[in-house]
């Protein structure tokens, strides 16, 4: 009896990871890449590659749980990376440049939130508009080019082999982990987090129960904007240039990660753990396919199939447990 329940506890613990495990198992069992796929060096590089989408997904999770959507996330990342590069290029101290980059992201998010609550338009429209605006401003600032900024310690944030080597992972990865935990705590253990769920589940109810829905939404979008800003900083750190055309279409990857991780576009559902798993499912899929050297079209097909499979698996489990 006891052993059985322990086993069940283990299964329950692993359950959300099912899709991810599926992907890992597939690639670890292909003889061709087996030996290299699960190596520390590869895991490190997948982790680093995931930081940008993961940071975006943290904010997007908040937004999607609250019943919204942010199409401007990718443009915001590009804009923030350009601002950071611009600032460093202008000779500002790197730390200030980072702050400016994040602030830009936060500002875009704040504007999103204010317009959504102020004009009472659906988030889809506002952030669609902002998607063009932020991208346009980024290109403008950068003069339609990329900005080559001198190398500083900012570029070390996403170095696969971090400088003090005891760090093991790039500082950006640690930051991502820290922020993921912090956001998860925010969502689960604070009043604000609970309000985010309530707004997404039934906004009218939240309002009638005295939740300040407008304020909460502005905070949600601003927070998400800050995350995008940080993601932009990381993008700059990785690219070493400020590129206004970077991350085109990345908003879909970010949203997909959240949805794969159980977020519902109609609000009220989602989790940080899930979204992070979603991010890593996609990263490992791409990584594995590249390692296999499969042509891109095969890769696209396989990723499509596995996304559906992974989420189906998760769904079946959910239905079982319900």
């Amino acid at each position: 009896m006891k052993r059985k329940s322990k086993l069940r506890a283990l299964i329950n613990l692993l359950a959300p990871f099912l899709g991810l495990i599926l992907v890992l198992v597939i690639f670890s069992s292909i003889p061709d890449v087996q030996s290299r796929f699960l190596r520390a060096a590869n895991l490190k590089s997948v982790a680093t590659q995931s930081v940008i989408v993961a940071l975006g997904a943290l904010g997007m999770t908040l937004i999607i749980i609250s019943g919204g959507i942010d199409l401007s996330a990718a443009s915001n990342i590009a804009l923030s990376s350009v601002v950071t590069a611009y600032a460093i290029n202008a000779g500002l101290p790197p730390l200030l440049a980072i702050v400016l980059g994040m602030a830009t992201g936060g500002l875009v998010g704040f504007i999103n939130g204010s317009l959504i609550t102020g004009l009472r338009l659906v988030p889809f429209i506002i952030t669609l508009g902002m998607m063009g605006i932020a991208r346009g401003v980024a290109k403008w600032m950068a003069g339609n080019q990329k900005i080559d900024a001198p190398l500083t310690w900012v570029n070390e944030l996403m170095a696969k082999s971090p400088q003090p080597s005891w760090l093991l992972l790039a500082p950006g990865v640690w930051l991502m982990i820290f922020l993921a935990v912090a956001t998860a705590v925010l969502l689960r253990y604070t009043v604000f987090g609970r309000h985010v769920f309530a707004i997404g589940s039934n906004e009218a109810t939240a309002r009638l129960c005295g939740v300040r829905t407008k304020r909460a939404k502005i905070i949600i979008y601003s927070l998400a904007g800050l995350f995008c800003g940080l993601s932009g900083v990381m993008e700059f750190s990785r690219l070493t240039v400020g590129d206004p055309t970077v991350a085109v279409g990345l908003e879909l990857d970010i949203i997909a990660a959240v949805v794969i991780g159980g977020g519902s576009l109609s609000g009220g559902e989602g989790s940080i753990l899930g979204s992070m798993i979603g991010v890593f499912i996609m990263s490992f899929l791409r990584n594995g396919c590249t390692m296999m050297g499969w042509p891109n079209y095969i890769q696209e097909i396989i990723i499509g199939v596995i996304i559906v499979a992974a989420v189906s698996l998760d769904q079946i489990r959910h239905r079982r447990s319900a």
Partner: protein
Amino acid sequence: GKNKATPPAPGEAKVFKIAVIPKGTTHEFWKSIHAGALQAAREQGVEILWKGPQKEDDRAQQITVVEDVISRGVAGIVLAPLDDRALCRPVQDAMREKIPVIIIDSGLQGKDYISFVATDNYQGGVLAAKRMGELLQGQGRIFLIRYQEGSASTTERERGFLETVQKEFPGFRLLVKDQYAGSTTESAYQLAENLIGRFPDVEGIFCPNESSTFGTLRALQESQLAGKVKFVGFDSSPKLVQALRDGHLHGLVLQNPVKMGYLGVTEMVQHLRGQKIPELVDTGVYLATKENMDTAEIKALLTPDLSILD
């Protein structure tokens, strides 16, 4: 990665695996590079791993591909960098892992690679400008339709074109010089259509790559202006060759992608076998016109033999 520490001695039976990383995989240009690389691989008895970023022209994803290829372990990397700066670090990483890198097509800052095999893009733009000057006798209203923000090789071509026009042909009036066609044929088509609607009296157009050239060609054909407007494009595809023959296109600046791919891989193998290789190879730019398109040299560039890919 300690396994590939020293290049094996020449003549050793070991089969190298060489990664060739293009900027994208779905254009004729990259297929030609692929064909050249494959040709070289056959001749040299090595294997190649052909892998582009999943999204065409996405530099962040190209970095990812380079990193993944390093993780996988290859003997060498032949890379067409999407960015002369952003790809520096992954290339450094590769060199640190003792994986030599050869750069093709577009430049890379720094000196962390062993050789650079490319077209002189600026020169390509110059060639186009000169052709335009010749076609219109240095007088007239012209468009420069740009490709995409932040694309280094096309920006060079645009710069070459623009500077030559300004320097050598003061009689030209540039009606448009800041419009970007975007990455797809359809977006180029729409842009050109709208521009022609605005300036129906345009006399000459230059486009810096295949997709923008083809999109603009379609717009000209649809507006019954094909052949009337002097049109110079860049790179080749069957439809463009046809247009050249029909007189809808008056010049096509060509590179030699097959050679680029071929040399990239050949040099890599030579390097791995311990031979010395040149640091810089210019594969040349050529101008195809209706008149010279049937000469053997130009014909081979216009319709490269890709049968090796099948």
